[in-house]
């Protein structure tokens, strides 16, 4: 069924799509096959499908949700296939540059400009920057996963603590809250992406940076060494013991099971943590110490070989316009538009003013882990060295200089 419909949509491709930069999205039809990740934000989009169906009865959106680890292989296979599997994809920020440069993604500037009142400038600036490769926009923001400090308000109040604004304060707070069966902080030192994603916040707090403005690696710095030492100290003093291979799953389960007092994680975990479990309602969100967070975000991108580009754009432009963004965020989606985070109706019907203004402040100056070619590999080579240093296999000094050197080599490949 899917295949036949998609094939129909695909038949006229070459001629129709070339000229649809300014086409009316309302005229789109056919099936749109979408790949997404198995996360709460995907469930929210699924719940919005009936409303889309009403607005665009001729477009049939079919969502396939997969675990993160399977997505990139599938997406790239679909890019390379003569008969694509997906007409619309979600793009994680480290993939953006490579996908765009390889010509896998459809440029969207003309389509964006063709919609009256879409207000593309309203998307948070750091998110728009990621989607723009060499001056061309290849994707529109879907949801952000900038990192934040998610902490137990009740424990902080009992101990008379304020959310930490520096690494020293984080270290002190974690040590203070580390008592009995409850660790001071749950961490995710797993080798590769996970530890780098967490440690980058320490790096920013120490005043360091990952890349210079010209894209070259700036990791070999005293600030990076200070940040790694702080990370290791906090891990040894206050993280659950034997948690060297922990990733996001373990850390979030640990705090939700009242076995850790806080964690640095995605800001969208707050509504989830506050919705279920014994400690629901006790969690609050703060900016990471130092105020500059590692930025992650998902985007909507249309594959260059999509069999239904107009249908895909009809769906994306509908879902990301101001009205639907508001619906999506009220339902619990992580915001990407500045206006929605300042919207009093969203505050009331969603999770309160404090949450949205905190997310807005986080997004103001958040920065991604990597910008440029081979980002995925660069993140992995740095993450390997960080993990080895936490495990005590290399010194802080050696880990940082090796990480910086290998990261630069990776960018130059």
């Amino acid at each position, binding site marked *: 069924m899917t295949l036949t419909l998609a094939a129909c949509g695909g038949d006229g491709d070459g001629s129709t799509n070339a000229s649809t930069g300014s086409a009316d999205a309302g005229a789109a039809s056919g099936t749109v096959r979408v790949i997404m990740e198995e996360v709460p934000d995907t469930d929210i989009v699924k719940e919005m499908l009936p409303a889309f169906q009403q607005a665009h009865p001729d477009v049939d959106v079919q969502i396939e949700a997969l675990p993160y680890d399977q997505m990139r292989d599938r997406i790239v296979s679909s890019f390379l296939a003569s008969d694509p599997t997906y007409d619309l994809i979600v793009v994680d920020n480290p993939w953006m540059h*490579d996908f765009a*440069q390889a010509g896998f993604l459809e440029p969207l500037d003309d389509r964006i400009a063709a919609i009256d009142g879409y207000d593309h400038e309203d998307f948070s600036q750091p998110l728009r920057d990621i989607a723009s490769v060499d001056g061309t926009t290849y994707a529109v923001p879907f949801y952000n996963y900038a990192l934040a400090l998610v902490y137990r308000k009740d424990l902080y109040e009992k101990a008379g603590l304020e959310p930490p604004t520096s690494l020293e304060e984080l270290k002190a707070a974690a040590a203070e809250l580390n008592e009995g069966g409850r660790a001071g902080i749950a961490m995710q030192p*797993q080798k590769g992406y996970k530890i780098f994603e967490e440690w980058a916040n320490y790096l920013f707090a120490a005043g360091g940076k990952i890349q210079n403005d010209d894209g070259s690696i700036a990791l070999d710095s005293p600030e990076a060494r200070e940040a790694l030492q702080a990370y290791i100290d906090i891990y040894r003093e206050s993280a659950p013991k034997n948690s060297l*291979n922990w990733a996001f799953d373990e850390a979030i389960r*640990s705090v939700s099971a009242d*076995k850790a007092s806080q964690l640095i994680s995605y800001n969208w975990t707050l509504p989830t943590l506050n919705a279920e479990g014994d400690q629901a309602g006790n969690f609050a969100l703060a900016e990471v110490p130092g105020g500059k967070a590692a930025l992650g975000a998902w985007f909507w991108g249309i594959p260059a070989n999509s069999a239904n580009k107009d249908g895909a754009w009809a769906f994306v432009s509908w879902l990301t316009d101001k009205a639907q963004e508001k619906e999506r965020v009220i339902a619990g989606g992580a915001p990407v538009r500045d206006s929605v985070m300042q919207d009093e109706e969203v505050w009331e019907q969603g999770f309160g003013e404090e949450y949205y203004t905190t997310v807005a402040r986080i997004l103001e100056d958040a920065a991604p882990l990597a910008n440029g070619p081979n980002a*995925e590999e660069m993140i992995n080579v740095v993450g390997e060295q960080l993990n080895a240093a936490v*495990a005590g296999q290399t010194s802080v000094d050696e880990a940082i200089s090796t990480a910086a050197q290998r990261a630069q080599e990776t960018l130059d490949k």
Partner: protein
Amino acid sequence: MVPLGLLLGVIVAYPLGYSLWLSLTDRRIVGSKDATFVGLDQYAGLLDNAAYGVAMRNTIVFVVVAVTLELVLGLALAMALQRQRRARDLTRAFLLTPMFVTPIAVGLMFRFLLNEQLGAIPAILDNVGLDIDFFGPTLALPTIIAIDVWQWTPFMVLLLLAGLESLPRQPFEAARVDGASAWMTFRRVTLPLLKPAIGIAVLLRALDAFKVFEYVFATTRGGPGDATETIQYQIYRTGFQFFRIGEAAAMAFVLIAVVLVLATILYRRFLRPEASA
């Protein structure tokens, strides 16, 4: 012969030939450069690639230790099962169950079973005052070996039990008449007669163990540091995560060479007709 040759050509020779060709190029899936022929550069690059050496060493340690443990445990269990009188089918079925779980699920299962805060095993050990860092720098590789032993010892049991039950009875009766001890019977009668079965079991298990990927992927991602980096996980990352297909193909061909050498040695020692005489 012709259909068979055609089939082999399509499903074996073509992919193998194509990946051999890839290993002689700098082919990548993403990136602006087109693939060019680079001769043996990818292979030469592996010689300088310290991470590849570490992964090869870890993989060989993994295969040798895991398969040896599985052989010893499997043989002991098979001999015990052979003597069992009651509830044989039930015991056997029960013992074989780990084999029927998909390895990625086994990896995830142990990731959480061994989790310090959430898992059952550290909780039990805690009661007796033990604190073990299963995925720490020293124990991570042994832990992954133990997971493999848990899952695949039953496979050894299955093959060795079949081998034991097909052995002729006369040599054992002769040994008993001659008054040989149990140990002598085992060393001089059982082991030599069982050699072909052991050879097959070890060969199959070793070839399979070289493919270790899921446990690493589910538990440590090759960490801490590079303590559990294995060849297959490295090939996966190089080829499918970093998209350097040419380099990944070269890595795979070196692995094939290592496996072929090992298979030949095992075959000569255990399976050639004169070897079992």
